[in-house]
């Protein structure tokens, strides 16, 4: 008998608190699979964000550190510098990483900090009930852009992967989406690569995963996937934005 699909070891058996159809759950699994496949379970330390994934420390079956809002890259830096032989990843939402944590992610990347960043971009603040994020699309309704995000009031969405790719310290940066099995498989490859980059001491790696928030988008899980494909992917093109790992060690 061959196992085709089952819970990875790096996930605990605890049911998550995520809303029905929220793709945070898929992303958790991809991260756990990567840890399993690379055999990193006993040396990985995960850093949970403040955001819907705040309870990630209950779900990942590895050592976990719950960071303050936006500062996961700084926390991860502290851990990694103390334990350079361990594997350290952060798991962060777009409010966490692209808003309050802008300085921390930019400078972790600039320093070429040898960590892996799982960046879950759902264009909204999920946990606090659906406020505008820096990644919220123009025209998108949120509880703090009730008439849709307007450029005159709130400016333009930030493309994090593109921005961080301008930094010499960033080794691997890719944007993927968990919309369907094919894209999930691509996402998995990117996540694996981002961990491998760290294992091989090649520097800072970040995977931006476009993800859904059916609850705060006011859509069913299936509609949410469609909106992600049509609207988000139009503004946030998928692809690898930076990959210096082939060129030898950047750090």
């Amino acid at each position, binding site marked *: *008998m061959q196992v*085709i*699909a089952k819970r990875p070891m790096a*996930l605990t058996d605890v049911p998550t608190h995520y809303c029905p159809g929220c793709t945070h759950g898929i992303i958790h699994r991809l991260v756990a699979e990567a840890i399993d496949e690379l055999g990193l379970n006993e040396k990985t330390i995960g850093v949970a964000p403040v955001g819907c994934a705040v309870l990630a420390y209950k779900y990942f079956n590895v050592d976990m550190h719950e960071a303050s809002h936006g500062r996961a890259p700084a926390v991860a830096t502290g851990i990694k510098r103390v334990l350079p032989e361990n594997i350290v990843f952060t798991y962060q939402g777009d409010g966490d990483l692209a808003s309050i944590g802008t300085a921390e992610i930019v400078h972790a990347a600039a320093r070429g900090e040898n960590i892996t960043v799982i960046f879950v971009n759902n264009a909204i603040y999920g946990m606090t009930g659906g406020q505008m994020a820096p990644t919220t699309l123009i025209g998108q309704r949120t509880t703090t852009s009730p008439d849709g995000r307007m450029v005159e009031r709130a400016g333009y969405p930030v493309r994090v992967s593109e921005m961080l790719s301008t930094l010499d310290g960033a080794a691997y940066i890719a944007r993927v989406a968990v919309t*369907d099995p094919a894209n999930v*498989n691509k996402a998995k490859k990117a996540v694996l690569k981002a961990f491998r980059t760290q294992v091989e001491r090649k520097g800072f790696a970040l995977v931006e995963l476009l993800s859904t928030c059916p609850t705060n988008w006011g859509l069913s899980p*299936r509609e949410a*996937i469609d909106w992600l494909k049509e609207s988000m992917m139009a503004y946030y093109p998928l692809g690898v934005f930076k990959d210096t790992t082939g060129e030898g060690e950047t750090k």
Partner: protein
Amino acid sequence: MPKNSVVFSEERCKGCELCVTACPKQIIRMGEHINTKGFHPATIVDPEKCIGCAFCARMCPDMVIEIHRE
């Protein structure tokens, strides 16, 4: 053709239907009943048609689906 067993942990299912969309064989349906969390859980209706592609499991956010090939 190998036989695939697709097992749903009903109690974990949140009824999101992402597996339904993902299944190329269209053999997953939402149950009529509700589980203790209040959701209609997904189930497989034509197990023998299953090709074991695991698309359903790839898309399930809640680790509901385990698949074995015999």
